[in-house]
């Protein structure tokens, strides 16, 4: 007998292994090996001048930082949701206050156009 989380873990591990196995299975059927020109990344006919791996400018970095802070609210909300009905109005008020404070941050980001990048 497995505890539920262990069952979930077992399912995860087995599915992942199965996917890797599936992926490798064709190497036996279809063969492996290719020449240098066959490994050139596709750009529509031209070969790239530089490696694609670079200091990629992810222009949404400000949104990502906003996410880092805002995502934390989920940690507080899960336990809150469990006791919400038992605690009643006080729970609603407290979480309302907490969320309102955080939403001010989102509002600020939106006003500063921090969510846009192009």
């Amino acid at each position, binding site marked *: 007998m497995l505890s539920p989380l262990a069952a979930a873990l077992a399912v995860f591990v087995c599915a992942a292994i199965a996917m890797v196995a599936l992926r490798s299975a064709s190497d036996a059927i279809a063969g492996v090996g290719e020449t240098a020109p066959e490994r050139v990344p596709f750009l529509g006919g031209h070969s790239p001048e530089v490696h694609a791996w670079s200091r990629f400018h992810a222009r949404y970095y400000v949104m990502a930082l906003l996410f880092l802070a*805002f995502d934390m609210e989920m940690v507080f909300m899960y336990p809150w949701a469990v006791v919400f009905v038992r605690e009643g109005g006080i729970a609603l008020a407290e979480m309302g206050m907490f969320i309102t404070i955080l939403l001010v941050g989102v509002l600020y980001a939106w006003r500063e156009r921090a969510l846009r990048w192009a």
Partner: protein
Amino acid sequence: MNRSLVVDVLFWCFAAGSVVTGFLVFRTDSMVRAAFWLLASFVGVGAILVLLAAEFLGVVLILMMAGEMLIMAVVMVMFMMNPAGLNPMFMVHQHRFAVAAGVVSFAGLSVVALTVDFPDQPVDPSVDATAELGFELLGDSMLVFQTAGVALLATMVGAIALASRNGRFGTADEGSHEPPLEIEELESP
């Protein structure tokens, strides 16, 4: 099979995994791999937390770390030269001192852990830890909870003001002048 044996085996797997992947963070050339090794280390710790009856905390730690480590990878790739480790690299300073500090801190902390006699008071498995946490959140630790909210708001505002180029005070890098271009050959081992 004995349940505690299974737990022990799993614990040592996760423990070894999280320490080894934690170490690999500093031993890989690719920044994406480094971030995802760190994620693996957190997942290992999260799994240990689950084994320790802190089921909610463990799972939520893993949940939080997915997003955080993705951002870590994105930012690392932006701000590292040679982010994918196409050329091998080893960007360290005061390496010997760092190794010594690591070893000493490990030894010291381990000695503390092994010598100090902590009270033996295991958590009651019948208690719903998540609900406990919820009551704590809305009861005694209410102030902590709200303070966290304010701190997070301050973080958001601060991060946006710092990172965003176009704020209400004008362009962030205006008036700064670029340092002269310098070619530095960094030591490789």
